[in-house]
């Protein structure tokens, strides 16, 4: 994974020098371990700040919305699918983009690492292939990467970028035999009362900071429905019903668009698994419309088209 850092820097330098792009969007090392931050470079001499490891879980597509210049961007599987979604939704044009594809092997869940070291302060993390070493003031531990993947990466079946101008490594083998919707099926099997309990507990910690919305590349409305006050669609307090309404509607706005990149869960300060909402919609889209978001530029998303044989059973 680390080997990509140099390649990204070289590519970015070349693109900027040749003036193929005006800016290059990638990741930079965060100020604390495990927290890589989005980084936009426009000066070819400053590409050495670009970085890549297994903590690049934020979605860079957020920074493409409505740009008018030419941009180079780093894209792994899910990011590339969001780029496709952005192009389909007319948020950016394909010819403005130079996509640097990165075959991805999954991102590490920083919360799982923190739990594994019993919330002690981590000063440094080094990755060597399939393992990584976590160092703190008075401890040093080695973990297997495989066991610490973000929950969305563990069940990911689109690790390779679907769209790119240049690929920085060999395509990786896609995972087979994973069942991505196991947790959704578990909830589906519950009776309404149990479901109510499940979701009430799930969102009970939510502080309505909207980090999940801000990190999501799909949420680019000029004014979000939760911020509007005339009319005020939903209450702004942390009342459980308002909070559920927020999560419910946020998820619904992502129907047929979500690529399960996991940025929402990654940024949540309270560690809420709000992918429980979006995953259900992904599953429905898959089952009812055979649709997975962001795989092709040639097809309109399901909520955008009408077909006479569309799923109709809910209308009497």
């Amino acid at each position, binding site marked *: 994974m680390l080997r990509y850092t140099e390649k990204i820097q070289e590519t970015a330098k070349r693109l900027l020098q040749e003036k193929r792009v005006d800016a290059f969007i990638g990741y930079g090392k965060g100020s604390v371990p495990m927290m890589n931050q989005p980084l936009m470079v426009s000066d070819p001499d400053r590409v050495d700040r670009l970085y890549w490891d297994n903590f690049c879980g934020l979605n860079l597509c957020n920074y493409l919305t409505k740009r008018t210049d030419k941009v180079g961007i780093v894209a792994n599987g899910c990011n590339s699918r969001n780029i496709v979604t952005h192009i389909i939704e007319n948020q950016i044009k394909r010819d403005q983009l130079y996509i640097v594809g990165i075959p991805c092997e999954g991102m590490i869940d920083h919360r799982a690492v923190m739990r594994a070291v019993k919330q002690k302060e981590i000063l440094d993390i080094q990755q060597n292939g399939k393992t990584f070493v976590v160092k703190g003031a008075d401890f040093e531990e080695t973990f297997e990467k495989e066991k610490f993947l973000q929950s969305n990466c563990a069940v990911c079946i689109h690790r390779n970028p679907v769209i790119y101008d240049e690929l920085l490594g060999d395509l990786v083998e896609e995972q087979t035999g994973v069942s991505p919707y196991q947790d959704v099926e578990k909830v589906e099997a519950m009776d*309404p009362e*149990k479901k109510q309990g499940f979701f009430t507990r799930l969102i009970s910690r939510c502080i309505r900071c909207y980090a999940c919305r801000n990190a999501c590349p799909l949420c680019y409305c000029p004014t979000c429905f939760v911020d509007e006050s005339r009319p005020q669609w939903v209450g702004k307090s942390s*009342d459980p019903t308002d909070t559920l309404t927020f999560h419910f509607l946020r998820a*619904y706005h992502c*129907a047929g668009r979500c690529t399960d990149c996991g940025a929402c869960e990654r940024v949540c300060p309270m560690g809420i698994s709000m992918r429980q*909402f979006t995953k259900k919609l992904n599953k429905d889209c898959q089952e009812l419309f055979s649709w997975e978001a962001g795989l092709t530029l040639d097809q309109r998303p399901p909520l955008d088209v009408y077909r006479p044989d569309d799923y109709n059973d*809910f*209308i009497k």
Partner: protein
Amino acid sequence: MKGLLEHVGVEPGRLHFSWISSAEATKFVDVANTVAKEVKALGPARYFIKKRAEVA
């Protein structure tokens, strides 16, 4: 929409969708009666209802 609402715990039968033309009076009556019957059978909703804020 119905799928997700039911997924988060709204009882099946509380939410109905129908397409009725202004010329389909009998269909309207039928649907209204079915909806009323099914919702009555479920009883009053207790979930997804905003209560007045409790002021200390």
